């Protein structure tokens, strides 16, 4: 320990009796403490506190019989086109037309597509909010609330988002979009392949090669 043990014991005078040296009852703990700190450093540096998180995604089961495929209401659909460009998102509403003028662009920021979703999804968000207020005021029970919210989310005229990613798009962009869809409370979305026609339009626009 940080301690200097002064030469104790022994006689000072000639005539004093020689005494056995008084041993200090302390044990030198320096090595143990050293080891302790070494371990402490090791564990501090190796522990990982931020565990990775996960996002759950359910892909639709593809029925073998193509007539049983679910038809979506295209009027409420919004199609996002993701390309290799890390900053731009292209989107259009409704049915695809072979015309560059229907395609709008936005970006991945908060002011970008989150706003776009919100505007389109306003109706549902408002309705769910009313239900939530009712729940808070204890006008409806918890189970009723859950049932009504699910019913609201299953409405036919809700926003439906189709995410179409180009093969060169980055995984990060797709995760960003799914994350925003979850935050924006979009009730239904799907991950679909981009069609050649859509690619062609983007090409004509000069956005992809």
């Amino acid at each position, binding site marked *: 320990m940080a301690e200097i043990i002064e030469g104790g014991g022994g006689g000072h005078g000639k005539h004093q009796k020689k005494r056995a040296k008084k041993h200090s009852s302390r044990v030198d703990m320096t090595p143990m403490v050293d080891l302790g700190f070494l371990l402490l450093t090791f564990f501090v540096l190796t522990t990982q506190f931020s565990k990775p*998180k996960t996002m759950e995604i359910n892909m639709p089961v593809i029925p073998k019989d193509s007539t049983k495929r679910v038809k979506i209401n295209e009027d409420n659909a919004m199609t996002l086109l993701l390309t290799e460009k890390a900053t731009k998102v292209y989107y259009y509403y409704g049915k695809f037309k072979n015309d560059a003028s229907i395609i709008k662009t936005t970006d991945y920021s908060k002011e970008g597509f989150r706003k776009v979703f919100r505007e389109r999804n306003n109706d549902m968000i408002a309705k769910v909010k009313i239900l939530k207020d009712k729940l808070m005021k204890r006008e409806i029970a918890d189970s009723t609330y859950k049932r009504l919210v699910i019913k609201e989310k299953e409405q036919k005229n809700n926003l439906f988002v189709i995410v179409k990613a180009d093969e060169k798009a980055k*995984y990060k962009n797709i995760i960003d979009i*799914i*994350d925003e869809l979850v935050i924006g409370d979009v009730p239904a979305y799907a*991950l679909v392949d981009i069609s050649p026609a859509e690619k062609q339009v983007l090409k004509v626009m000069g956005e992809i090669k």
Partner: protein
Amino acid sequence: MGKIKIPKSAPSLDMTPMVDLAFLLVTFFMLTAKFRVNEAVPILPPASHSEKILPENMLQVTVDTAGRAFFSLDGQDVRKNLLKKMVQKYNITGVTESDMKRFAVMTEFGVPMSQLLAYIRGGEKERGKFDKESTGIPIDSVNNQLGDWIAFGWNEKQIDQQTKKISKDNWCRISIKADGQTNYKAIKRVMQIFQDRNLNSFNLITNMKTEAP
């Protein structure tokens, strides 16, 4: 007058509390530490706002920036059975009991079947070389080895879970881990392989975004 004697005392400092604290911290970190599993390739998953914690029991496919696929599955018994099935299917001879044991404790791997034995038997250095240079588990439709790993692995896992009577909440989940810069093409292919085997629910691994949504 005699000199005033200042009593000689050792410049001692009582360090007991500090040491106590240090050991307390050591104990804490030792008990809470969960070691990073050995990753075959460095992956930087994209960030999201999701707060769901990663499930413990997983069948995981990792895709790196080059689009190479790696496979891992939890559970040592399951892995042994899985290896047996795969070896049988791909007609690989000379697999010993010790190879099985080594395979059971391995983490992720990304080598085609032809290199698997060499990978299992290799030391840390050889495995590192394989991880860097191999082409990953083949995922193309002609030679879809990843599909076989998934199909057999999932099957063995189901059998294991039923015999061990594991509660449904802790059943194996599928996770896909990919680098943010991986091209969507590779991810799409991996998802396609899962969906071809009627597995439609995935966990996508992300890091946590620190800023509020």
